[in-house]
C-alpha cells in the first residue's frame, strides 16, 4: 500500500490552501461472488475496486476528490484538486504521521481468495441443493456465495497512519415455491465478518432448507388482513424495525442538520422503558463489525437508548464538528468513491425480561411477524415501512395460519413507545444498508418483541 512518506506529501498538498484537516483514504477490495440458478453455476462476479479519496475540511466546509490513479503523481493531482476546490489560503498544518496498529478483533483462518473456485462451488452446492430437494413444490432456487476482502489505508493531518483488512463471507439462498398456480419466495442470507471458517458454525444445508421452508409455508398462505393491530415481531432480522424506526434518525447524517425526529432529545424518554438499544461495532466476527471506522476511529460499543431514554447519537468526525461532539466510531463508506458519513454497525434491541410464550399468549388478535424483509425510513418525520416475509395470524394467544403480502408502517416515535414487551432470545440478522455513503454491511437484531399497536398493510 501507500507509504507513510507519500501520504505525508499528499496530505501537505491537500492542506496547502488553508485546510484545518486533511485525510487520505485508499482502498483495494476484492469482491468475489459465485452465483447459481437453474441448478447450474451461472456466473461469477469478480471485481477489484482500487482507488483513493482525499478530503479536506475548513470549518464546516468539506471537500472531497477521488481518483483511480494511486501512483504518487495521481494522488498528488487528486490532493491538488481538493485543495483548489477548498479555495485560496495558505498552509496552516504541519504534517507528521505516526503508524498506529489497532489490532484485529476478527482473526481470519480461511481467507476466501486463497480457496479455489471449485471448493467454493462445492460449499454453495450444499446449500443450493438442500433448498432444491426440500419439497416438490420448489420451482426455482438461486444461490450466491460472496467473499469480500477489503483493505483500507487511512492517513490524516492529525498524525494517523493506519490500515485495516476487512474480510466478509456470506451465503444467500432464495427459493421459489408454487402451489395452485401461485408463487411465493423465501430466503436465508447469513453473513459474517469471517473467512470461510464461517461454515464450521453455519451449515450450508440449513441455509438452503430455511429458504425453502419459508417459500413453501408462504405459497400456501392467504393474504394478510389490513388494519391496526398488535404485532409480535420475531428475533434476528426482526430488528430491522429498530434500524428503520429509530436507528437512521440517530445518525449524525440527519441529526446534525436538524432533519431527525430525535434531534434535540438527548436525555429524554423516546422509547418505552422496556427498550435498551445498542450499536456495537466491536462484536467479534459479526457482519457489521469493524476494527476501525473509515476515518480511522476505533469501533465502539455505544448504548444509544437505555431504559427508553436517549443516551447518544452515532457520529462521524465531520458532522461531529457541527454538533460539537467527537466521533463515535461510526463513519462508514461503501468505497473510496463515497463521502463517509455516520452509519450503523451491529444495531440491536437488548434482551428484556418477558417470556417469549407470554408475548404470544398476550395477543388476542394480531400478527406474528416471524421473518421480516427490508424496509426504509424518512428520518425527518420518522415515517417508516418494512415488509413481513413470513407472517401468521395470532388468535386467542395462539399462532394460527400463515399470511402473505403484509407490510408494517408507522412513525418511529410512536412505535418505539409501543414496544411494550421485550423477550429474551436476542439474535442478529444480516443486511446491506443503503444511504448517502453507499451500501454497507450491517447487523440488525432483537429478541421477540410485542408492538401493542401498528398499522398492518394487507388486503
Amino acid at each position: 500500500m501507500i507509504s507513510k512518506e507519500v501520504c505525508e506529501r499528499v496530505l501537505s498538498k491537500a492542506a496547502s490552501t488553508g485546510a484545518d484537516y486533511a485525510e487520505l483514504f485508499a482502498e483495494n477490495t476484492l469482491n468475489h461472488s459465485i452465483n447459481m440458478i437453474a441448478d447450474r453455476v451461472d456466473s461469477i462476479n469478480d471485481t477489484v475496486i482500487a482507488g483513493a479519496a482525499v478530503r479536506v475540511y475548513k470549518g464546516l466546509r468539506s471537500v472531497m476528490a477521488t481518483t483511480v490513479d494511486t501512483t504518487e503523481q495521481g494522488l498528488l493531482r487528486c490532493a491538488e484538486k481538493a485543495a483548489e476546490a477548498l479555495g485560496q489560503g495558505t498552509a496552516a498544518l504541519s504534517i507528521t504521521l505516526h503508524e498506529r496498529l489497532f489490532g484485529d478483533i476478527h482473526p481470519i483462518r480461511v481467507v476466501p481468495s486463497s480457496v479455489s473456485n471449485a471448493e467454493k462451488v462445492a460449499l454453495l452446492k450444499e446449500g443450493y441443493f438442500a433448498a432444491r430437494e426440500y419439497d416438490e413444490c420448489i420451482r426455482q432456487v438461486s444461490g450466491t456465495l460472496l467473499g469480500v476482502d477489503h483493505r483500507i489505508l487511512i492517513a490524516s493531518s492529525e498524525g494517523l497512519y493506519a490500515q485495516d483488512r476487512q474480510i466478509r463471507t456470506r451465503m444467500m439462498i432464495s427459493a421459489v415455491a408454487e402451489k395452485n398456480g401461485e408463487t411465493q419466495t423465501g430466503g436465508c442470507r447469513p453473513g459474517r465478518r469471517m473467512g470461510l471458517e464461517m461454515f464450521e458454525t453455519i451449515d450450508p444445508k440449513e441455509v438452503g432448507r430455511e429458504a425453502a421452508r419459508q417459500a413453501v409455508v408462504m405459497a400456501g398462505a392467504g393474504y394478510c388482513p389490513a388494519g391496526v393491530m398488535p404485532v409480535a415481531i420475531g428475533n434476528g432480522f426482526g430488528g430491522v424495525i429498530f434500524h428503520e424506526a429509530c436507528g437512521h434518525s440517530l445518525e449524525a447524517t440527519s441529526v446534525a442538520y436538524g432533519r431527525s425526529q430525535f434531534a434535540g432529545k438527548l436525555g429524554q424518554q423516546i422509547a418505552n422503558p422496556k427498550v435498551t438499544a445498542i450499536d456495537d461495532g466491536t462484536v467479534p466476527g459479526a457482519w457489521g463489525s469493524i476494527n476501525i471506522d473509515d476515518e480511522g476511529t476505533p469501533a465502539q460499543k455505544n448504548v444509544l437508548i437505555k431504559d427508553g431514554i436517549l443516551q447518544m447519537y452515532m457520529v462521524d468526525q465531520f458532522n461531529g464538528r457541527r454538533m460539537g461532539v467527537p466521533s463515535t466510531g461510526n463513519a462508514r463508506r461503501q468505497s473510496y468513491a463515497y463521502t463517509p458519513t455516520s452509519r450503523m454497525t451491529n444495531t440491536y434491541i437488548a434482551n428484556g425480561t418477558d417470556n417469549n410464550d407470554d408475548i404470544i399468549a398476550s395477543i388476542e388478535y394480531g400478527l406474528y411477524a416471524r421473518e421480516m424483509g427490508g424496509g426504509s425510513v424518512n428520518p425527518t418525520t420518522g415515517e417508516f415501512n418494512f415488509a413481513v416475509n413470513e407472517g401468521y395470524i395470532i388468535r386467542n394467544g395462539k399462532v394460527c395460519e400463515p399470511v402473505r403480502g403484509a407490510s408494517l408502517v408507522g412513525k418511529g416515535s410512536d412505535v418505539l413507545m409501543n414496544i411494550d414487551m421485550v423477550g429474551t432470545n436476542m439474535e442478529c440478522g444480516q443486511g446491506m444498508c443503503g444511504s448517502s455513503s453507499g451500501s454497507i454491511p450491517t447487523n440488525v437484531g432483537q429478541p421477540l418483541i410485542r408492538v401493542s399497536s401498528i398499522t398492518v398493510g394487507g388486503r
Partner: protein
Amino acid sequence: MEFQAFKQAVIAAAAARGVAEYELYYQTAESTSVEVFRDQVNDFTAAVDGGVCLRCVVNGKMGYASTEELSEAAAQALVRRAADNAAVLEADTPEVLGQGGKDYEAFAPQADEMPATDALIRTALDAQKALYAADPAVVDGTVTDALAQRLKIAISNSNGLDLEYENTLSAVMLHAVATDGTEKADDFTLKTGALDTLDLPALAAQTAAAAKARLEADVAPTGAYPVVFSPEAMSELLGTYSPVFSSENAQKGLSLLAGKEGEAIAAPSVTLVDDPFYPGSPMPIPFDAEGSPAHCKNVIENGTLKTLLYNLKTAAAAGRETTGNAAKSGYGAKISVSPFTLYLAPGGCTEDELLQKAGSGVYINSLGGLHAGANVISGDFSLQSAGFMIENGKKTRAVKSFTVAGNFYQLLKQITAVADTVKLPRATGITSFGAPRVLVEGLTIAGK
C-alpha cells in the same frame, strides 16, 4: 496506465494464454457535486471512478473479471481471473460475443461539456434561496445540491467490435424541510437538465408545497378504493417490476410472463414502450451492453404482450433476434437484460378527467420501501404511501402513513384509465421510467 495501453496489455496477456474470444467493457464516470446548507457550500465532491471488465469465452463458457487498477500486472491477473472463473461455470448454452449491428441511431446528448464548478455552486445557492422564498414554512434542515456527471462507455472485442459512447448530464436536487411549529416534514425533487434551463422557482414551489402537504397530512382510512397513481408513483412501480419483462427472468422461471408473448396481460388501455431515444431521456444510449443497436419497441400494445426484452443469449435460447436490451448493473457485472427508457404510453383523458372518473378514492403521489414491500416474483406488493383523498372527483385533504396493497400482474388488468401527459421522473443508472397518471380499481388501502 491509460485505457488504450491497458487494452493492449490485455490483448497480449490473452494471446499468451491462448484466449481467442474476449471483450473489454470500459466505463468511467467523472462527477462533480455541490451541496448547500444554510446558504453556504457545505460539501463539494469531484469524483472519478470506473474500471474495466473483461469477459472471455473458454470452452464455450463466459468468464468475467474486472478491475479499477490499470497496470501491466493487473492486465495479466485480469485474464487469469476471468479464465479461472469460466472454468467452473456450468452454462446451459454456449455464449457468444456480439458482432454489433449496421445502424446505430444518432442522438443529441444533453450537453457536451461538464458545467463549470461556479455554475454548479450558483445553481445550488439559487435553488436554496428559491426554496426559502417559496414558503415561510420552509425551515432549517433544507439542503440543495447541484451535480453533473460525464459517463464514458467503450466496448471492444475480438470480433472487431469497437464502440464508444459519451454523455454528460447535470441535475439539481431540492430537499425542503417544512414545519408548522411543532412537527417537521420534508420532500425532495430531483430534476435533470442543462443548468440554465432549470426553472428553479417552479421546482422550489412544487417541493415546498409537497413538504407542507406532508405536514398537514392525516392517516387515510382503511378500505378498498379506486386509486389514482401520480406519474411519480406509477414510474416507481414500473421501475420496481420492470424485471418481469426480462426474457432472462422468464427463462429462469422468475417471471410469470414466461410463455405469455402474444397474450392479453393488461387492460386494453395499456401500451408500454421501451424507447432508448425518448425525448427528454437523460441517458439516450445508441448501443446496449453487448454492442447491439438500441431501438424503440412496444412491450405491451393495447393490453397484449408483444415482446419480452432480450439480449443475445436469451434471444438465441428463444430462437429469435435480440431486442438490444443487454445490460449490466455495474461495469463489472454479468450481462443481463434491462429496458432503457420504459414508459406507459399516454391515454385519452386529461389528468382532471381521470380524477373525475375515480369519483372518490385515493391519489398516491409517493411510494416507499419498494425494495422490500414489493415481491418481484409473486407480484404481491404492500407499500407505504402518501398523497391526497379524492372526493367528488377532486383532490382534497393530504393523507400519509398508509399502505396500498395489490399484485402487479393483476394491477396491469385493473388499470381503467390512463391520462394524456407522460412524465419521466425516475432514473436509475442508464435506465429511466415514466408514466402518466393512472386510475386503478380494486386495490386495498390500510390506514386507520
